[in-house]
């Protein structure tokens, strides 16, 4: 997909929109999740799972598939949505997000098809991707590539630079890093809290070829990955620095760290969807009713066992709204 056709472009944009809509839906129903970082990576994932990566749900275990490592694993919602949309598992399963026996709040390897990496501790993914890339080479697998998506705040972690150093040292040109450079970390702007700029210079000094793109323009994204493949015989690993907007698509959430980790209430989610429809000129709706769960926390558990007071049952609890003790559930 060096130059995607207008149809392909539309399909990719549709996919990105669907990712955002699904995220909104199941984050709201879970009462927990990372909206900002999921929205900023939506086009990247749409492209990766919409044509760039060699993955096939029917052969989810094919050793020659490409691998995707979400190092910024808190933004798992967009990945789950992308996988479901690509047919790795039923869209229904998204509703199990953050429930017992459901999809993990971060990602858990092997928990469902397509999840390659147990993540959540920032800074760890690129090292793991180094191992995957070395494994391909040792196993004479020259077909597969490993893509690793990291956050810009995550680039504070020294381990990213250890991994950058070793990838260059081992000339891992089958490894492609992507930085979701959305300018915001958990509690504020990257430039204010702990600046990482100039990222391209840093990666270049660490022996990589940086390519900077507009991370919301699927055309630019596809061109960048095409160029990455073209460059890879060079021996220098390629990093795609995708300039993005945290919370992209919902003006209230854009570059707003409050929406780094926060689940919208059902009315907020409706408003967010309206905003998304407006931004992208659509008119879509949620596919199911929204309801925020509550977590009665310690009090509910103790009180229920003792038969004191009115305690909602476990199952019912998902649809009752906040119990008095329940400031626990919906914000990191």
């Amino acid at each position, binding site marked *: 997909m060096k130059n995607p056709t207008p149809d392909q472009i539309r399909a990719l944009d549709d996919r990105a929109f669907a990712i955002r809509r699904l995220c909104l839906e199941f984050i709201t129903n*879970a*009462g*927990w*999740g990372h909206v900002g970082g999921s929205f900023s990576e939506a086009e990247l994932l749409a492209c990766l799972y919409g044509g760039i990566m060699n993955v096939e749900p029917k052969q989810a*275990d094919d*050793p020659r598939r490409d691998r995707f490592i979400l190092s910024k*694993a808190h933004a798992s919602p967009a990945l789950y949505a992308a996988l479901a949309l690509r047919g790795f598992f039923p869209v229904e399963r998204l509703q199990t997000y*953050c*429930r*017992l*026996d*459901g*999809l*993990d*709040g*971060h990602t*858990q*390897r*092997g*928990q469902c098809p397509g999840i390659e990496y*147990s*993540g*959540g*501790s*920032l*800074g760890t993914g690129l090292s793991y991707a180094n191992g995957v890339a070395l*494994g391909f080479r040792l*196993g004479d697998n020259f077909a597969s590539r490993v893509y690793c998506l990291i956050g810009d*705040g*995550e680039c*504070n*972690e*020294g381990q990213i630079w250890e991994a950058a150093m070793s990838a260059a040292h081992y000339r891992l040109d089958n490894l492609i890093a992507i930085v979701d450079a959305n300018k915001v*970390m*958990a*509690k*504020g702007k990257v430039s204010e*809290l*702990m600046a990482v700029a100039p990222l391209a210079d840093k990666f270049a000094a660490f022996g990589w070829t940086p390519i900077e793109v507009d991370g919301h323009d699927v055309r630019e994204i596809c061109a960048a990955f095409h160029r990455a493949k073209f460059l890879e015989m060079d021996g220098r690993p390629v990093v795609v620095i995708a300039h993005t907007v945290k919370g992209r698509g919902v003006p209230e959430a854009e570059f707003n760290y409050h929406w780094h980790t926060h689940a919208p209430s059902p009315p907020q989610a409706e408003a967010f969807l309206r905003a998304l429809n407006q931004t992208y000129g659509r008119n879509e709706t949620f596919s199911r009713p929204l309801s925020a*769960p509550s*977590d*009665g*926390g*310690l*009090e*509910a*558990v*103790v009180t229920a*066992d*003792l038969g*004191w007071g009115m305690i909602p049952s*476990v199952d019912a*609890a998902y649809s009752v709204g906040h119990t*008095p*003790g329940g*400031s*626990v*559930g919906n*914000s*990191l």
Partner: protein
Amino acid sequence: MKLTYSKKPLREVFGETLVELGGLHSRLLVLDADLNTSSRTILFKERFPDRFIQCGIAEANLFGIAAGLAAQGYVTFPSTFAAFAARKALDQVYVNIAYPCLDVKIAGSYCGMTATECGPSHNCAEDLAVMRALPHVKVLDPGDNRELRSMMHVMMATPGPVYFRVSKVNAPELFPDGHEFAFGRGHLLRQGRDIALIGTGFMTAVALGAAELLDREGISAAVAHMPSLKPIDEDLLGRLARDTGALVTIENHRIYGGLGGAVAEVTAREYPVHVDAMGLGDTVFEAAPLQDLLRHYQLTPRALAARARALVERKRKGVAAGSRRRVARTVITATTAALPRTP
């Protein structure tokens, strides 16, 4: 004994007490690693912006900077999630803080299972064991808001490194106004003859609930609260062991080397009795709301009462001293544990 649960989560008290202490001690500094609204160090930041240092998402650096500042005579409170203090930056905590015995007070928030929906990557069910094994570090898990506040005042008055747990849980009010924390002191919250239930952190509430259930069936259970894991109240443990002859511990932690381990180490050395440890087995806490985790991993009053009852029966039948029969343990096998070796 019906408990009142605070509307204010422990972490809020942590943030407020930092502000309070900040007003009293000009050499107190707070350091953050991009988690200030979660940990509530934001309250300190807003009040004392010049004494708040943002270190970004770089926990190794966080603790190294905290140590360098402490070496200049500051008392530093670096704060991050328990997982990143006890795992990600453990070497820095050891080499830069514990070993030179610097004046650094480490708050591990989201301790144990209280990272809830974050799942296994964030839940940290090993911090107590890890920190207990380090030299010179005092290890604390407060049970209610007043205790946390008092604890922070006491650590501020005591040079040397401390690790203490913080969470977003609304804890029950265990103690009245004026309650004073002391290193190495536990608290007998309820008298009992047949067995003693020992909790730490907010899990003591579960022990109190279980004692109530046991009482209804005629079993007299003492309840002790152990906010100080290291040093631990050896006298109180000895007394409980002698008076009841059987202990059950409950903790928001894996059952290796935490509260259960600390209690067993002491009783085995001083006053051998049965100690049944409840907590997480050889697995991880999955992602879910707290109430579901407590129930799924059987850390409820009912489950604790059942374990206590079994132990009391064993004791009554006189088999306690010689039985080879095992008390069932909560060892839940991880789903991931059986993953095959395929690429």
